[in-house]
């Protein structure tokens, strides 16, 4: 079963063939999948609904289970696999890349320190190098302080081909919903919901790359719940053609009249704002004439399905209507909405209470850690800073590591560590640490840090 999605080197990456082979292999993989059992349905008595206790079929057994196939999850899976351990990657959506692809967060920032020196390498650099040789794959490479921007589809393709090449077992459209714990409270795997029903995957180490910390929370690890803005990124077409037209959108902002001139008597507005949207929207992407348009969005609870539903509906509607507004401006008639991101841009939800909680004070003060596993670039007013291994390890629960946006950090810090390249950094470190746990037969909190750092170095990571 382990050879399920592994293309086994039969086909060269980059041709169309591996894709079809993947289908073939996948079909093969499902031969081994246990038949869906007839399960007793949930029962309602009065207003109380109960789920009868039942045994779950074990879909798969593995050494390292990575839950979540976003930037952190893919980095963790490929890095661990490289050390020769058995890795399984599970992703809720039908593609890999998480918010980087499905969330259309296409800018790779923060990548540089305050002196515009790149401080994030390793898996991030590897991906970018592969995108470099892909047509329309990535733009603005090595142009600090301008951040590179990649194409979501190129990234999806790249990650899919990497899964097929690397031998990582992957399950897509498979949503991790619960942790499996043994008698001593150690995590032994996770429960998944998919079209195949509710199934279990048993593992020695679980890396929680769900972003929301679903697995460690289910396993009973302490966490902090935070609320941030939730937006919806979109891509719009023909926008740069508008900007390139002489005289269009190049109106001198200095020639603007005071917004309150001629409005004397209408009362002072309570807010200082010129509200008028002229079409310089978004940032260029590798795809010609297409910009990606970020949206910060309103505050929201990413763990509340009603809230998420409301945002999914409203923000998609809003994006559409904003593009329509753009179309009504002179010169912008041809602008069209290419797509809205399949996933909402959830920034933060759960933050782990780890062995080490990375504090705002520490990162502002340039704190150095003995167990450094990578750097985050300088972002907004914060300088570049080190990320300690302790931030990935839950304080209490065993056999689980966190990576990605849900690691152990204070809110202000997590607002930076949630960004795509930093997720690659924490993901890669978590993957290598998990592999070390398997090889050295130890718990994540007892991982030999020197060995971990050495392996990170070998995989090209930057540790200062």
């Amino acid at each position, binding site marked *: 079963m382990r050879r399920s999605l592994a293309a086994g080197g039969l086909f060269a990456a980059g041709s169309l063939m591996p894709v079809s082979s993947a289908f073939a292999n996948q079909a093969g993989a499902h031969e081994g999948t246990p038949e869906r059992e007839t399960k007793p349905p949930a029962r309602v008595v009065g207003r109380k609904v109960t789920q009868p206790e039942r045994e779950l079929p074990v879909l798969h057994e593995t050494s390292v289970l990575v839950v979540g196939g976003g930037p952190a999850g893919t980095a963790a899976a490929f890095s661990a696999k490289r050390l020769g351990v058995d890795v399984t990657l599970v992703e809720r959506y039908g593609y890999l890349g998480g918010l980087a692809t499905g969330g259309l967060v296409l800018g790779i920032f923060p990548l540089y320190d305050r002196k515009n020196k790149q401080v994030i390498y390793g898996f991030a650099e590897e991906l970018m190098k592969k995108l470099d040789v892909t047509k329309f794959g990535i733009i603005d490479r090595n142009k600090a302080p301008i951040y590179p921007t990649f194409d979501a589809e190129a990234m999806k393709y790249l990650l899919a081909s990497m899964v097929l090449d690397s031998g990582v077992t992957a399950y897509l459209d498979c949503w991790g919903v619960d942790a499996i714990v043994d008698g001593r409270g150690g995590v032994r795997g996770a429960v998944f919901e998919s079209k195949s029903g509710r199934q279990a995957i048993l593992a020695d180490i679980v890396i929680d790359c769900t972003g929301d910390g679903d697995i460690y929370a289910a396993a009973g690890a302490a966490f902090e719940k935070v609320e941030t803005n939730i937006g919806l990124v979109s891509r719009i077409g023909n926008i740069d053609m508008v900007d390139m037209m002489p005289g269009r959108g190049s109106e001198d902002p200095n020639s603007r009249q005071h917004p309150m001139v001629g409005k004397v008597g209408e*009362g002072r507005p309570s807010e200082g704002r010129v509200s008028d949207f002229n079409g310089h929207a978004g940032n260029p992407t590798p795809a010609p004439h297409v910009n990606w348009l970020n949206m910060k969005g309103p505050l929201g609870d990413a763990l509340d399905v009603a809230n998420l539903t409301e945002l999914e509906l409203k923000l998609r509607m809003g994006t559409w209507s904003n593009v329509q507004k753009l179309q009504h401006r002179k010169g912008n008639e041809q602008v069209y909405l290419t797509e809205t991101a399949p996933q909402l841009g959830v920034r933060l939800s759960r933050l782990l209470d780890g062995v080490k909680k990375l504090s705002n004070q520490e990162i502002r003060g340039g704190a150095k850690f003995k167990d450094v596993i990578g750097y985050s670039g300088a972002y*907004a007013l914060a300088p570049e800073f080190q990320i300690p291994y302790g931030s990935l390890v839950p304080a209490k629960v065993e056999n689980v590591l966190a990576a990605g946006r849900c690691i152990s950090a204070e809110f202000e810090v997590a607002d930076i560590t949630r960004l795509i390249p930093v997720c690659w950094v924490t993901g890669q470190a978590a993957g290598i640490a998990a592999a070390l746990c398997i090889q050295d037969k130890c718990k994540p909190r007892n991982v030999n840090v020197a060995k971990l750092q050495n392996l990170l170095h070998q995989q090209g990571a930057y540790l200062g």
Partner: protein
Amino acid sequence: MTFFRRVPRWVIQLTCFVGAIVLAWPLVPWKIAPRFFQEISPFVSVSSIIATRSIGVGAVLALVVAIASSFKKRWFCLYLCPTGFLLENSSRFGMRKNRWWGKCPPVGRYVAILTIAGAIVGYPVLLWMDPLCIFTSPFALNKATNPYSVILVILGLGVLVGATFVIGMLWCVRICPLSGLQDMLYLSRKALWAKLTSGAASPKAAGRAAVTESSNAQLVNIAAARAPKPQAARKEPANRLFAKSTRKFSSARRVFFAGGAGALLALIARRAGAARYRKANTLLRPPGAVPEDRFAGLCIRCNNCTHACPSKIIHPDTGHEAGLAGFGAPVIKYDRDYQYCLETCNACSQVCPTGALTALAMPEKKKYVIGEAIVDDNLCLLVLGKKECDACELACPYDAIKIKWDEDQFISYPGIDLNKCNGCGACQVVCPVNPTKAIRVWTLKPS
């Protein structure tokens, strides 16, 4: 007085010159020293007291100078004035030694009358001609951050020294309003004296008698000193410096016309100032500035505020912001990285000698509204979905900016609470959009 007669005049002058530099720098730990130094000038003090209808401690010094000058002709020019000292020496090494300006009318007096009459209307028209302010202006050179500012702060003194080198002492003898005021004080005192001592003599005649002495002969002779008859010139005592130049005291009619013209100019300038302000978008005055219609008049371009500003954001205006009338007057420009009007500083308002900037205590300064920050949706990275930027929100020292979500337009934007914003510019200087910032401080508009 006998003591002073024994000491060579240049020794006293040099001492005062050095003292002036010490005060204007200021090399003393007293931060508002430059302001007191300028308030010594009776011309500045009288005009600003009338124009602002308020009086300060510095007025006492001005009164002393005024009384001394009314007893000893041009006492201030001869001994104290640092500009006079500079110009005298410039003329000494200069190109023109003859007294060609003897025929020139005493412009300085009319300037003084014009200005004081303007001050009554609230706009002291030519107050910027005061020599002490011209002298201190170049001290702001260390805070000049662009070539225009460099030129503007040294312009006044540079032109005077240069012109004096070329054409001689015309400024000191005829044009300087401070010397004109001193002449008038001296002559008035004499006329009054004559009237009191000999009741029979008509004051006009007495005045005329007094004026026949000219007051600038000695200055003339300084120039002549290097000419063929140096010895005769050198022997002339200091108090005859200005002898023979004062032809006669101005007639009542001339005084009336000068005053009328001053008041009229002041009215026109105030109207123009108010109109300019209504149209202005980017005109920002330093904290404590009097309303714009009077500011350009009250401001004497001494550049004390430019000199005092630790953020170096106060620049003399090239005329771009406030037109010709506001030429050289201070404007705030948030054009330097991370330099804004600090919430812990009120230095500029403390050093203004004329009250163009009202002295503000720290609590008042914090509340003083320089302008209002307005975010331009057309440029804001956040609004345009280019970057998740909240630099302005983080930078605002008054907690006036919050990133908000516009429910109707489906965009996030920095919401600025105009009731909290005082236009300090902290948001503008951190805004990453270049060259025009997305969030800028605009001229405060009346509601």
